[in-house]
């Protein structure tokens, strides 16, 4: 397999990292090759313990588990991965759902034994697909509010016209070299807070420090600027029926509070979850979409209770 250079720009080192109560720096980091891209992982806990792999959502990174991971490390080897194009993993020429699953399975394979998979949001959907595709590698599965998008309302613009617009906007997207610079980290915090108003500023200061890098013209998001959405033949109705093949125990976790990116309306969520044969469902009171960030102790307690050693 060809090894490729990483096209990510170099950054100016900035120390020290902000602190946030309950976070611990990783005990180990690794880079796992996956089709020419290096997947960066953070680890906490005994390397001989049962592995738990954590997969984050879109525009997040492995440090979004910096409070949950150390708590789970009480009993597990915890591996939090940066998806390609995110955090400190490599950049590719293109991105897609399928290759993310492949990366996940490569991380799992590198551990040499079956694992527990835990994913949040997009990562929740992806660990579910990974478990569906290689069930022999997955002992138990936890999906935190990653049960797919709602069906989109019928569009006013005909599909060919939308595709032409999509091709034009994609051209602009893939030609950009970087996100626009922000003057300060606080500007990034405010940007993210506008999207996720339930998260507190102190957490976001910790989170964005690891999500951004300093260049001579200011702070830039670390994630690859060419990532974006492209329309194609896809129906949200295809998602849940595929979960019928899951044989391992599955824990579905959502927060009780409505939030920007979830949870799904209850009837739709129940309908989708009904396809999973071996399901337990938990609602964490007082949490929104970022259940593990808003309620790390409760989430850890739930998982330590549910996951087998």
């Amino acid at each position, binding site marked *: *397999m060809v090894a490729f250079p990483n096209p990510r720009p170099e950054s100016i080192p900035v120390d020290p990292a902000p602190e946030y109560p309950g976070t611990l720096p990783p005990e180990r980091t690794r880079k796992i090759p996956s*089709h020419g*891209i290096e997947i960066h992982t953070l680890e906490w806990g005994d390397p001989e313990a049962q592995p738990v792999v954590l997969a984050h959502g879109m525009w997040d990174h492995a440090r979004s588990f910096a409070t949950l991971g150390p708590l789970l490390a009480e009993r597990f080897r915890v591996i939090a991965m940066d998806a390609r194009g995110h955090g400190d993993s490599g950049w*590719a020429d293109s991105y897609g759902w*399928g290759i993310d699953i*492949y990366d996940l399975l490569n991380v799992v394979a590198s551990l040499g034994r079956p694992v527990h998979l835990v994913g949040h949001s997009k990562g929740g959907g992806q660990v579910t697909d990974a478990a569906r595709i290689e069930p022999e590698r997955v002992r138990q599965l936890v999906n935190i509010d990653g049960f797919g998008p709602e069906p989109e309302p019928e569009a006013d613009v005909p*599909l060919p016209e939308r595709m032409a617009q999509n091709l034009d906007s994609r051209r602009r997207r*893939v030609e950009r070299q970087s996100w626009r610079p922000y003057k300060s980290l606080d500007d990034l915090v405010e940007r993210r807070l506008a999207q996720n108003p339930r998260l507190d500023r102190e957490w976001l200061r910790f989170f964005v420090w690891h999500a951004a890098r300093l260049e001579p013209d200011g702070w830039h998001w670390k994630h690859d600027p*060419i990532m974006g959405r*492209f329309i194609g033949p896809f129906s949200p109705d295809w998602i849940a029926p595929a979960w019928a093949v899951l044989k391992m125990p599955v824990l579905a976790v959502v927060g009780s509070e409505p939030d920007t990116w979830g949870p799904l309306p209850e009837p739709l969520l129940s309908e989708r979850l009904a396809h999973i044969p071996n399901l337990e469902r938990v609602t964490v009171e007082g949490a929104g979409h970022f259940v593990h960030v808003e309620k790390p102790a409760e989430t850890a307690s739930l998982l330590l209770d549910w996951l087998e050693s």
Partner: protein
Amino acid sequence: MSAEVGGDTVRKLQNGRVTLALHQRKAGEGTPLLLLHELYGSSAGWATEVDAWPGPVFALDFCGHGESAWMRGGSYHIEHFLSDADTALREVGSAVLAGAGLGAWYGLMLAGARAEQVPGSLLLPGRGLEGSGSQPDPLDTERRIPTEAQAAAFDEGDCDPCCAGMEGDPRPPDFIEPFATAARNVLLVDDGRAMPHWWRTVQDCGGQKVGADLVSGLARLQAAV
């Protein structure tokens, strides 16, 4: 950037981070013909009959195929094949399309999305025509992406083994229908084998069947445009 290789002029086009090869097989007057090859194929696989087209003839190598670059990281899907074809069309300006297999599926999508620039298209059988059927393959795209050991044993010509993921690419008839409706002068080459399921939708939207003889198919296309 262009270079003359064996009588064939090659233009290097940039589609994001990927460099594509667009071959000009011949010059000529009138509407250009843009050729889009099948899955695991390349611009070099076209029969010489395509040069019967009176105008200039261009043949694209899709990403991961022929002389175009392989995707760093191995991710291939609709976004790349369709935007590759769009990049070539943008270079040529306006063209009739001839697409085989996977090139027929993306050619028709482009013909619908860029109907003003594409006065007609000829869809031919070839690899990648059926995809995984109307819905995603139960085996899934990602299951088809080869491991490193499988990639080393890959035996589909010079293309990137990761292109095998495209065998799980679905061809839902209800998705292609608005493209087939918007596209102008669509001809379907019937070589006597079973027609792919989504071609029935194309026929319902006005697509016309033609015989397997490429020269007469191109003549029909020329007459139509």
